[in-house]
């Protein structure tokens, strides 16, 4: 799957799509990996907090307030 840039020229009204170059694709894929790792870490952290709150006997509402 390749990514593309959508280009709207307001002077002509035309919309065209340009495929990402290899360098752009590589950068995007690398960022996706970084974002995935960041996301996983965030979820893991939150799950750990939720588990702790449950162990403490807090309600879901109370846990949400602490996480917010």
């Amino acid at each position, binding site marked *: 799957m390749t990514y593309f840039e959508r280009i709207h020229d*307001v002077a002509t009204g035309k919309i065209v799509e340009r495929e990402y170059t290899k360098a752009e694709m590589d950068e*995007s894929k690398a*960022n996706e990996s970084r974002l995935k790792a960041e*996301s996983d870490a965030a979820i893991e952290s939150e799950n750990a907090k939720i588990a702790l709150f449950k162990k403490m006997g807090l309600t879901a509402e109370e846990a*949400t307030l602490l996480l917010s």
Partner: protein
Amino acid sequence: MTKARDLANASTALSAVSATELAFVDGVTSAIQTQMDAKAPSSTAATLTGTQTLTNKTIDTASNTITGAVTLTGTQTLTNKTLTNPVISSVINNTLTSTTGDIIYASAANTPARLGIGSTAQVLTVAGGVPSWASASASATSYTLLSTTGLSGSASTTVTGLSGYNKIFGVIHDATTATASNEIRLRPNNDSTGSGNYYWGTSFFAGASSYATTNTTGSANFISQTEIDAAKFGSTASSGDANVYFEIDGANSTGKKMITYASGVAPGAGNAARNYNGWTIFNSASVISSFNVRVTGGTFSGGTIYIWGAN
């Protein structure tokens, strides 16, 4: 004149010419008639040809004709004279402009009038068919919608053809992405060089999983960037929509462009979503002719970018 005297005294006169009359030709060295013809007659208009110098002479008002170049020496006063080619009829008197900054205009046909200088910052306008000074009215900014472009499926979207608009206002409405923790970035002129282009001053709030309550994490930065961080989605793919606005002032100048922007990410699962609130100096000598919005990784799965322009 011995011979003439002899003739006059002769016993037989040659004519009725007296000796006195004959004496009048004393000193004549050439034909008298020829000399007389060469002189201008005094009873008719005199025509002087060639370059003439008239000094302290009177031109007969009966003829008023001088042919050829005339050199007037000394101080001359022309009274009630009409210059027919070129025409100078009624000369504007310089005393009409009595004050510094005065302007001469025609209050009616062939009627010069004075318009006194206006006050500081006043502008010249027209009222009642004549110019006048008036206070400059504040111009109303009228925005034109230039682009409505869907983001879905694209990794980035660029709106081009923005040259000529000094004010650009944009909204990214309900943008979504399948990539968790994704970020929306903005690039005027698709510029990410970072060299000579500075993006300074931003702050963000990182929301937690339930963003409807309070924001727990804040940060303020004064940094140089290569593009504008506009919004960050939450840490799960089902994170909420992101909405961003940005405004550019001075977009059509070759100087610095001032950009303000803010974003909001709707509550969704997962924390780490960020709402940005910042301002930017886009330090580029190029006018802004295009604007790019992108996600850091992957693609948009929904959303629309609207861009308006004004001057």
